[in-house]
């Protein structure tokens, strides 16, 4: 550290934190842009408005859940049960709207509450039971599925009201041509980004994932924060459930949400969040989600077998995390 790197206080005032966008995120943006260019050239319709609109809409539920997953992973946790939570929230909404006559907005509130309650179950067991999150959420995943199936009661929920379209990909769900669901996601990402970066509580999540004991010594309420992370996850899943219902058919069946947990985890780790905790950003997670969705869309639009998209997801995970590992190693070597 030579003397000329001594920054004057004035400069420090401007650059208050490490750069707002990480290397991982720049790489992801580059890859996504590249993919978009390739797809635009290779398929006639990729850049058509509706193609982009539906891509952005699809991004919304995964992106919203990836926010929560990022927070959880930053605290060195994980949540395998989100697919099951999504199912419970969705069927709750569906039943309330069709049988209870609730309006769509009221049902969304119910879904959020349901999500938060299930998240709280996870949070309680993990922070107070002191059992690894992966084990607890494996278990609750089964329990929540049971609850969801019970509510479904072996029937589908039919005739979901058309009012759900406001969060769907269709014309009802757009403002100035942009899907509302996507806008909600953008707002949430921005809020989460600001909170995690600029609020004490947000920074405490990172401190917990970094060194739980030291965080506790520094006066961070580790249990409460851990609990909170899972409750927030549940809330976000509740919202994702509303968007999923909005874009689905007028019939809801019990397969809703299947496989989403691994997709969300994939998006989150592609975005540069470490499963070991202490590191991660919601911006990266959303970019990861966008990458995954772009690949899925691209594969279908190119007319390739749709099952190939998972191969690309796998390869992207290895490359993204590998790039991160290499950067980490370089930095350590520099010391």
């Amino acid at each position, binding site marked *: 550290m030579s003397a000329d790197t001594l920054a004057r206080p004035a400069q420090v005032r401007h650059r208050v934190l490490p750069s707002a966008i990480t290397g991982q995120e720049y790489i992801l943006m580059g890859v996504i842009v590249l993919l978009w260019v390739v797809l635009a050239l290779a*398929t*006639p*319709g*990729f850049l*058509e408005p*509706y*193609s982009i609109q*539906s891509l952005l809409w*699809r991004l919304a539920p995964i992106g919203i859940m990836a926010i929560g997953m990022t927070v959880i992973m930053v605290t060195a946790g994980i949540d395998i049960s989100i697919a099951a939570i999504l199912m419970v929230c969705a069927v709750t909404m569906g039943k309330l709207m069709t049988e209870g006559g609730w309006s769509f907005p009221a049902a969304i509130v119910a879904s959020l509450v349901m999500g938060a309650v299930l998240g709280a179950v996870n949070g309680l067991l993990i922070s107070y039971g002191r059992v690894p999150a992966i084990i607890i959420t494996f278990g609750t995943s089964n329990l929540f*599925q049971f609850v969801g*199936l019970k509510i*479904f009661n*072996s*029937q*589908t929920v*039919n*005739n979901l009201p*058309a009012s759900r379209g406001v969060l*769907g*990909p*269709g*014309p009802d769900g757009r403002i100035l041509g942009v899907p509302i669901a996507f806008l909600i996601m953008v707002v949430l990402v921005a809020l989460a980004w600001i909170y995690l970066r600029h609020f004490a509580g947000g920074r405490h999540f990172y401190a917990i994932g970094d060194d739980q004991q030291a965080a506790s010594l520094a006066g961070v309420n580790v249990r409460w924060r851990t609990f909170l992370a899972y409750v927030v996850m549940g809330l976000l899943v509740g919202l994702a459930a509303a968007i*999923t219902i909005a*874009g*689905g*058919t*007028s*019939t809801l*069946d*019990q*397969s*809703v949400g*299947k496989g989403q947990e691994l997709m969300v985890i994939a998006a989150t780790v592609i975005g540069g969040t470490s499963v070991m905790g202490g590191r991660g950003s919601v911006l990266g997670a959303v970019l990861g989600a966008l990458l995954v969705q772009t690949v*899925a*869309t691209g594969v*279908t*639009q*190119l*007319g390739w077998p*749709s*099952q190939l998209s998972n191969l690309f997801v796998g390869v992207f995970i290895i490359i993204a995390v590998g790039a991160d590992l290499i950067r980490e190693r370089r930095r350590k070597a520099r010391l």
Partner: protein
Amino acid sequence: TRNDGGTPTTEPTGGATTSSGGEAPAEFTVAFVPKIQGIPYFEAMNAGGKKAEEVIPGLKWEYQGPTTADPAAQADIVRSMIQKKVDAIIVAPNDPDSLAPILQEAKDAGIKVGTSDTDAPNSVREVFVEQATGDGIGTYTADTLAKAMGEKGTAVIVSCGETAENLNSWIKIEEETFKTKYPEIKLLPTVYAGEDQNKATQMATDLMNANPDLSGIIGQCTTSAPGVAQAVRDAGRIGQVFTVGVGTPQAMLPYLEDGSSSGSILWNVEDLGFLTAWAGAQMIKGEPFQATNQVSDTIKDVEFRDATKELILGPPLVLTKENAGQFDY
């Protein structure tokens, strides 16, 4: 919810001991194992089976399905049915070949074995209860779509499970029909969305975006039929892109009404359930199927093809916005 029926023939329960016809036991159980529980299609079959319970003396109808469309989970259920010593097991296999061995075991245990909805042709099943002939379904979907499209343009089939025997046989007929009857319609390679509505919607959306000239989509199963219609509705291309599918009435009704679905084909699923139960009962009683069978007041003239041991419910039921509302599933 305990099982107080299905006791073996040696210990007849209650007062219903007097045997009515031939050597049939006074009380007997027909077990049906669907591909998956909780979807309207199979739940409607269950409802039909329950109706048969009331009509056919001595019949006990048992319905048990896995929570995921997984052959292994189906095999477990069949195994427990064998153990419960039911008198007949009828399966709608997720994967025809996967269930052949366990069906053999059932037969070895002296249980009558059949398939319904989806066949397992290489198995020891004694009857396949078929909803309609594959011809009937495949030609209807192809013809209806072609008519809506004006007999030209590009079309695609959005199917479900890659290995589903019935869907694949219908697809074969559809491809055949387009090739011979509608040479001006170009058919894109079939895509598979699993038993997942949302995925069917997304794939249909992507295919529409990638192929601006796409004007026809077939939703091959009861989950993809509303899925593809929803995609057309969301894209705001009702009237430009036409869909037909194999869908259940309640699920299809909104789409038939707004025109995003040009037609849906099905059969009376409850009747199929009833017929399945009846077929099980016939097998247990040892009464052979006739060339045409009178099953109930409403299910008449059911054809039995001896060569293939197929029991065919009848011609498919074409759902329109007028009649779809009459069904409660």
